[in-house]
């Protein structure tokens, strides 16, 4: 009897999870579907779900009108560069916070996180002016640095959480074995934290890829990534939903595929500590 209830409950939970999952995924699915419609069918009322005339025309137009490859390369450089740079800065920072904490470590961690609570637009003006002064507006390297700084609190927090799970005695053993600080981090800490570092890399790559506020405000042509590519189909083109959807699908496809293949790693990374 009890078993039957549990099975029923399990089924209910599964259905609920699928329901929520589909709800979250629906906008993306709708975008993808719309990208294959004609402009007229895209704004049809009532909306057409699947019974439309599938066409690749929008993709053709988008490819013809914009240099997709250039935007893609910029996205890869900006998201990849800022993530790698962030990890390089965050590993030593998280090491010191996890293994040689001071009285203020907790405060510093919270203070870092608090910068994420500030609306980004609050610092747009000073950063914009700084970029002009330094002559790095619409510059990929500048965006790498800015996005790195913006995601740094999250990178440090994640790595800090992973590192805390590593027994300090193992690092002390390395020190006794004659390892310098560099060797300790390189040969002992990092290999042990590889799963954590990998999830952090992935998550931050996705965050940086999707980041739209700074990439839109600080770039125009040379450094414009895929977010700008999407945006270029929204404002000037008005109501051309199908083309906008095609551009969006092309922009999110690489990250969607990456996320799909690494979902195991991502879920493991995000629930780390909670399940242990």
């Amino acid at each position, binding site marked *: 009897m009890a078993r039957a209830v549990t099975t029923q409950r399990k089924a209910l939970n599964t259905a609920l999870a699928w329901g929520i999952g589909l709800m979250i995924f629906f906008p993306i699915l709708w975008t993808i579907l719309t990208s294959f419609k004609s402009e007229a069918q895209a704004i049809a009322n009532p909306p057409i779900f699947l019974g439309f005339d599938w066409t690749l025309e929008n993709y053709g137009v988008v490819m013809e009108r914009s240099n997709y490859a250039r935007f893609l390369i910029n996205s890869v450089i900006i998201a990849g560069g800022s993530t790698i740079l962030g990890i390089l800065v965050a590993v030593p920072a998280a090491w010191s916070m996890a293994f040689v904490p001071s009285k203020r470590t907790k405060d510093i961690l919270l203070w870092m996180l608090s910068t994420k609570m500030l609306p980004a637009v609050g610092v747009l003006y000073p950063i914009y002016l700084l970029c002009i002064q330094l002559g790095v507006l619409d510059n990929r390297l500048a965006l790498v640095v800015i996005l790195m700084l913006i995601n740094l609190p999250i990178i440090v927090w994640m790595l800090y959480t992973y590192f805390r799970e590593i*027994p300090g*005695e*193992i690092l*002390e*053993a*390395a*020190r*006794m*074995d*004659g*390892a*310098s600080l560099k*060797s300790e981090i390189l*040969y*002992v800490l990092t*290999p*042990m934290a*590889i799963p954590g570092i990998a999830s952090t890399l992935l998550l931050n790559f996705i965050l940086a890829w999707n980041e739209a506020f700074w990439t839109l405000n600080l770039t125009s042509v040379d450094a414009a990534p895929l977010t700008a590519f999407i945006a270029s189909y929204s404002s000037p083109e008005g109501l051309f939903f199908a083309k906008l959807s095609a551009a969006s699908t092309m922009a999110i496809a690489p990250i969607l595929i990456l996320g799909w293949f690494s979902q195991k790693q991502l879920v493991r990374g995000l629930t780390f500590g909670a399940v242990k």
Partner: protein
Amino acid sequence: MGRITLDKVTKRFGDVEVIPPLDLEINDGEFVVFVGPSGCGKSTLLRLIAGLEDVTAGEITIDGTAASDLPPAKRGLAMVFQSYALYPHMSVRKNIAFPMKMAGMPQDEQNRRIEAAATALNLTDYLDRRPGQLSGGQRQRVAIGRAIVREPSAFLFDEPLSNLDAALRHGMRLEISELHKRLDTTMIYVTHDQVEAMTMADKIVVLQAGVIEQIGSPLDLYRAPCNLFVAGFIGSPTMNLLTGQEASKRNAHTVGIRPEHVDISTTEGAWKGKVGVAEHLGSDTFLHIHAEGLSLETLTVRVGGEYAVKRGDTVWLTPQEENIHKFDANGLRIE
């Protein structure tokens, strides 16, 4: 060489003085055991010697070199941790090789030493496994292997056997003693287990609250504990401590008598008592006796072999006068 001198070594964590100024001398080749209840500062003292903690004041000298400001790697010491602290992502071979790799030793010399250590520690068949695939005893042997290949001037052991089960602990105890005889290198061993201390040490350092209570050979401590703390700590089961009439009769504030130094009879003796719990081990019998007219409610008595008494039986006890320890009001030994 492995001569270690501690001169007024002090450690404070914030306002808490964990180790008040402490002097200690450890001679080359000695097996020294730091023993004491948990929180007595024995592990902290070991970590100070290792360099994993900084001394607040005082000087640690290793083989004549001031070492207080040297990083752990430069002190020439090797340490075996309670949790083994093996590198989980490396094979046993790489674990053992790690200190040599850090020292930049030539590859063939590394291999030679790994083979030698593996043979000595029965690890030859496990060299390519990861620590996760080994049993507790094997892991501890890898940790020891990693320590010996460096040929350190001294080994530091931080409660290395506490994670092992009783049978394995006994075996490892013998192995470590054997290793000490063979290598003839200084070893400093921290434990809260007085049996480990008694069986392995050349010299025992009894610590309480960061203060050295007594230093001596195991039998020195057993025969002549210098105060009540050491008297109560060394020996198993613990010494019976009596105050009141029995003490004043012998011109002392407290007298102590070990369980094995009380004679027992069913017919006559100095003290009359009733048997409480009787622990029959076969080789020994431990009797907990409720004696009349003593300051101690339960007296522990050890009788060799089997002794057929049961709960509630009346027995007579007589302490062996020559084995009675006397202490004054401050708890210090009276000779």
